[in-house]
């Protein structure tokens, strides 16, 4: 049969030499490799004290966004659910009643919004599909849980903290990427003003 590649390595099965049959040199060689790792840089970190750096393109757990006044942006248009390849997102829409204008941005809103995090594959297609800037993948991962039912995230689990009532938590939830983006937009605006 013709070989598909020229990278074939032929295994030699010769009988072991006397040095190999003694075993001890091989064991010492292995111990030395293990011992040398004591002086190398450790790949693990002590998690709660130290935190790993998340790259800006990291796709973490979803967050439902609010506008500057703290109103929910989601209008239950269903585009995230239709884009979701894992079919993890479900929702139910409702009409905004008079007197609820401070809660919801548009006349229709998501009364129920649910993401099954057991199904979610963190592909970010929901973020891409959203026409209302309502869903983002944040820079943290979904926390561990003892029960499966703890991974069915409802709207309260997903909503970003209120920007006026809890500004610190809101800023924290926004993460570095949002502030970096804002800065970038600001500088580009200034540049265009200069021009």
């Amino acid at each position, binding site marked *: 049969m013709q070989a598909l590649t020229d990278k074939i390595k032929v295994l030699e099965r010769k009988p072991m030499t006397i040095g190999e049959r003694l075993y001890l040199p091989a064991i010492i060689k292995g111990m030395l490799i293990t011992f040398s790792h004591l002086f190398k840089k450790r790949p693990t970190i002590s998690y709660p004290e130290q935190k790993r750096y998340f790259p800006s393109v990291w796709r973490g757990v979803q967050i439902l966004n609010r506008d500057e006044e703290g109103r929910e942006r989601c209008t239950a*248009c*269903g585009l995230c659910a*239709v884009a979701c390849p894992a079919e993890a997102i479900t929702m139910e829409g409702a*009409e905004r009643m008079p007197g609820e204008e401070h809660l919801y941005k548009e006349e229709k809103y998501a*009364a129920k919004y649910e993401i099954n995090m057991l199904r979610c594959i963190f592909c970010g297609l929901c973020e891409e599909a959203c026409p209302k800037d309502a869903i983002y993948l944040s820079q943290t991962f979904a926390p561990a849980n003892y029960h499966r039912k703890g991974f069915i995230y409802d709207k309260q689990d997903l909503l970003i903290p209120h920007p006026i009532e809890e500004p610190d938590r809101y800023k924290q939830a926004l993460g570095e990427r949002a502030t970096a983006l804002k800065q970038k937009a600001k500088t580009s605006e200034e540049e265009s003003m200069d021009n």
Partner: protein
Amino acid sequence: MSDEKKLFKVTIDNITVEVQPGTTILNAARQIGGDIVPPAMCYYTSLKGSGGKCRTCLVKVAAGSAADPRPMPKLVASCRTNVMDGMVVENITNPSVLEARKGVVELLLINHPLDCPICDQAGECHLQDLSYEHGVESTRYEFNRRTFDKHDLGPYIQLHMTRCILCYRCVYVADQISNKRVHGVLDRGDHSEIATYIKQSLDNDFIGNVIDVCPVGALTDRTFRFKNRVWFTKPVDAHRDCPTCKGKVTLWLRGDEVLRSTARKDQWGEVSEWICNTCRFEKKKTSDWIIEGPTVVNRQSVIGQGHYVNITKPRETISDVMGGRPPKLLMDIHNVSGVNNVDLSEIPGPASGKTFEEDPHAFATNPTDRKKPELNSNHELE
């Protein structure tokens, strides 16, 4: 007699077809079918006098007829222009037609609010399809769009005038299908709007058909309002024994709930058999209907998403291997999920926050509803 009647030979985009005299270019193109059919937003086969308003069906007539082969000087509306023998028509083969259509779409969208994420028509909207296919990516319009208050035309129909493209189809429906028309187009030009005179409600057995003929989301069904997105519901053909109409409808289901019923539409999105208000708005139980089978949905349509037609499910082998023991369910999503717990088909209007939190029979009333005392405070409409 019949051999005396000469068929007209017409060439549309290099495809020749023979049609009866008196056929419009649009209908001749529809006989050929495929990509060469001009889009139509205002023309409706079964409505007399419709067409000629939206200008999306513009085509170039390269040769007027065999007798007079001069081209027509301007693009013509194919829905209102009859064919002549030996006529040569260019639709997608002529770049100026596509360019003109792009301009028409831009004009139609100038005052359109583009609130598709909210609109119930999204997914089956002709304007959405048209602008996706022929429109430009962004708008050049810098001024405020015209705005109108939304209002109810009767308890079942909601009018969003901001979305209207003034195709006049609903006016023709009221004129020709129902006995008396109480709505029409008021004012002129940019200000013109579909309205009932002094906001009279429309009550007629067949007035619900204005919802089906509306190419955009201007006239929508209040019994379906905000209940689900079109593409998450499952269309099935069904019929019932109806004393007023033929009772042939398409039901849009979520599980066993009938969220909406509409008349059956053909491949051009047109209805030939009108249905009455009882079939459309009141029969919201599967037991009211005899279900014939799933509606055939175009493969390209978003409504077809998640409809797995003609698939064979793989056989579940776990219980065979485990000696009859079924696989152990670690979690049943229906016990945990808070979605799909309310039967939305039982409420006659859109759900409100109250529907999901306190009373599953509560529904949102509208500002216009509140003016009527009997509709105050979340009561049934009957």
